[in-house]
C-alpha cells in the first residue's frame, strides 16, 4: 500500500496548552485524492490547517507529509505542500507576475517551466491583463486567484486550501475546480476546507466533519451519511452535516 501524502495522527493542539482547540485528530489524505474538511465557524478547521502548515506546534500527535516531519526535514516537508489561505495574503510591493516568479523561485520550479506554467495560469484565470497590477489594485476575488495560481504553479504533492471560493466569481470557481481535478489526476493530494457543501460533495472523494475540535465523522459520502443516520444513497452531505452539528455535538469523535 502506498504511503499517504498527508498523515495526521492523534493531533491535539491549539493556542494554549491548557485549552486545546483540536482533540486527537487522526486522518490521512492519499495521492490522487481530494478530501473536504467541513465544520461550523469555530470548529477548528483553520487551526488544523495551521498545524499542518507548521504555523502552530502540536501539543500531542504527529503530522507527516510524504513521510517527512517538519522538525526533521523542514525543506522536504515544506516543498511538498502549497497553501491557499482563506484571506489572500499578498505582498503589497509585488505585481501578480512577480508573485508567480517569487513562488517559482521559492519552490525551485525550473525557469522554462515557470514561464510556461505562469502564462497558462494567467490565461486560465483570466488574469493576463492584470499581470503587472499590484495587490492594492486587485479586487478580493482577483487576489484570491493570485493565491490559487501561486499554489498551482508550484505543483506540489499536497494542496492545503482554506475556503478557496470566497470572493471568486463563477468563472474563477470553475477554473479552480477544473485545475484541482487536473492536479488530482496527476497524482497530487488536495485537502480543502469549505462551507460550500454542495461543491465539496461533488468534487471531494472523502470528507472530514469537524465539530468542537473533534472529528465526528469521516469517510466517503455513504460513511458520513451512515454516521449521521441518513439512509445511504438518499441523503446529501448538507443534510448529514446539518443533522450531526445541530444536536449539540452529541456524536462522539470518530477515530
Amino acid at each position, binding site marked *: 500500500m502506498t504511503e499517504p501524502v498527508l498523515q495526521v495522527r492523534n493531533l491535539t493542539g491549539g493556542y494554549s496548552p491548557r485549552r486545546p482547540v483540536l482533540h486527537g485528530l487522526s486522518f490521512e489524505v492519499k495521492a490522487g485524492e481530494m478530501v473536504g474538511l467541513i465544520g461550523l465557524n469555530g470548529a477548528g478547521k483553520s487551526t488544523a490547517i495551521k498545524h499542518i*502548515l507548521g504555523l502552530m506546534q502540536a501539543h500531542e500527535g504527529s503530522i507527516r507529509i510524504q513521510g517527512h516531519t517538519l522538525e526533521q526535514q523542514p525543506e522536504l516537508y515544506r516543498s511538498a505542500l502549497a497553501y491557499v489561505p482563506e484571506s489572500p495574503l499578498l505582498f503589497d510591493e509585488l505585481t501578480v507576475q512577480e508573485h508567480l516568479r517569487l513562488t517559482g*523561485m521559492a519552490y525551485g520550479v525550473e525557469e522554462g517551466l515557470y514561464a510556461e506554467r505562469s502564462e497558462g495560469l494567467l490565461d486560465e484565470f483570466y488574469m493576463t491583463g492584470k499581470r503587472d497590477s499590484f495587490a*492594492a489594485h486587485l479586487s478580493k476575488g482577483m487576489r484570491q486567484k493570485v493565491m490559487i495560481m501561486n499554489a498551482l504553479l508550484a505543483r506540489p504533492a499536497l494542496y492545503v486550501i482554506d475556503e478557496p471560493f470566497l470572493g471568486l466569481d463563477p468563472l474563477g470557481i470553475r477554473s479552480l475546480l477544473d485545475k484541482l481535478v487536473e492536479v488530482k489526476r496527476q497524482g497530487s493530494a488536495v485537502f480543502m476546507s469549505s462551507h460550500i457543501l454542495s461543491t465539496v460533495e461533488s468534487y471531494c472523494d472523502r470528507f472530514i466533519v469537524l465539530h468542537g475540535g473533534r472529528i465526528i465523522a469521516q469517510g466517503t459520502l455513504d460513511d458520513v451519511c451512515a454516521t449521521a443516520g441518513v439512509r445511504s444513497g438518499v441523503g446529501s452531505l448538507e443534510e448529514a452535516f446539518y443533522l450531526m452539528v445541530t444536536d449539540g455535538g452529541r456524536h462522539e469523535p470518530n477515530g
Partner: protein
Amino acid sequence: MNRTVDAIWRERAGAFWRETMPYIRYMAQSGVPLVASMLLFTGIASYIGLLRNVPSSFPFTWIGVAALLPIICWSPLRTWLREADTVFLMPREAEMTTYLRHCFRYNGIAGNVCLVILCLIHSPLYVQGPGQLHWLLLLLAAVALKVLNGAGAWQERKMLWSGARIGMRLLRWAATAAALALLLQTAPWLALLFLSAAALLMGLLYRGQRQYHLPWLRLIAEESRTRRRYTVFFSAFTDVPSESAQVAARRYLSWFGALTRYRKEHAFVYLYAHTLIRTELGGIMMRLTALGILAGWLAAHSGLWMGWGAAGVYMLFVWLIGVQLGSLVQSHRHSVWRHVYPLPDNSRLASLLRIDRTAMLLCASILWLPLIILLPGPGFMTSAAAAALLGLGYIVVIRPIGLKRNFTDSDDD
C-alpha cells in the same frame, strides 16, 4: 454614550502622541539628535560666514523663493480619520465642521510656527538684498500666503477629479512662487496687486470645480499615508507595529529588482529588493541620497575644511541612509510565507545582508560623485579617498554585525 466629535478629535490627537512618545525616546537614544545638532551648528557657522561676506552677484530672489516656497505651499492635514469612520463618523457629517476646525488649527499653527522661524533665519540675508519691503512685513506677507495656500489645498482635497486637483496644485505653487519673487524684489504695491489678482483668480477657478462636501476617502488615505511615514521613520530605530505598506511602482528602478537571477536561493533577495524599491523606504533613501549629493556638492565646492567638510557630509549621509535602511530587517517578519516557502531559515538573513550591502554601496557611490569630481582639482584628493575608504569599511565590515544582531533580536521577539 454618543461622544461629541470635539471629544473624539482630542482623544485621537492625544492617543497619537501617547503612542509616538516612546518612539521619539528611542530615536533620541540612537544619536540622531546629536548628529542633527552637529549638522545644525555646521549649517549656522556656514550661514554666518555667508552673511559676513555676501557676494555682489548673490541670487537673493532665487534663494529666497527656494527657501520659503516649500514651507508656504506644502499644507499637510492630519485628521486622524480611519477607514472605520466611513461607518461611524460619516453619519455625523453635519457635525464635522467642528472636527475639521480642530484639524486646521492643529496643522496651521505648526506650519506657521515653522514658517516664522524660517523667515527669521532668512531675514538677515533678505535685508542685504534688493527687497523693498520691511522684513517684518515680509514675514506677515509670508504668513498670509501660507494661510491662503492652506485654504487652496483644502479646496483641492475636495475636488472630484485627480487631474484637475494636480493641475490646480501646480498652478497654486506657480502663483505663490511668482508672488514671493515679487515680494522679495519689486515694489510692494506691485506684489500686493499681483497677489490679490492671483488669489481672486484661484478662488474663481476653485469655485468652478466639482467638489465633495467632505472628501472622506481622500482624507483617510492622506492620514494613512502620514501614519505609514511615521512608521517607516521610527522603525529605523525600534520595532514599530507595521501598517500595510504604501507602494509606488517606481518603474525606473525595476532594473534593481531584475538584477536578481532566477534561482531558488535568491527568492528572498528578489522579495527584499522589491520591498526596498517599492515601499516608502526606497523613497526615503532616494530623497536622502539627493539631499546628500546637494550637501556634498556645496561642501566640496566651497572646499570646506580642505575637503574634510565634504568627507564629513558624505559619511553623515551614508550613516543616515544606513539607519533608515536598517528598518528593512522588520519587513516580512510576520509573513506566513516565511514559514510556508521551502527555503532554509538562514536564507532570509543572507538575502537581507546582500540587499543591504548592494543598496548601501550604490547610494555611497552616488554620494561620493561630488567629492571625486570637485575635490581633486584644488588638491584635496586625500579627503575624498579617506571618505570612500571609511564608507566602504562601514558598509562591508560594521553594518553586517549590527544587522545580524537586529535580525536575531527581532526574530526572537
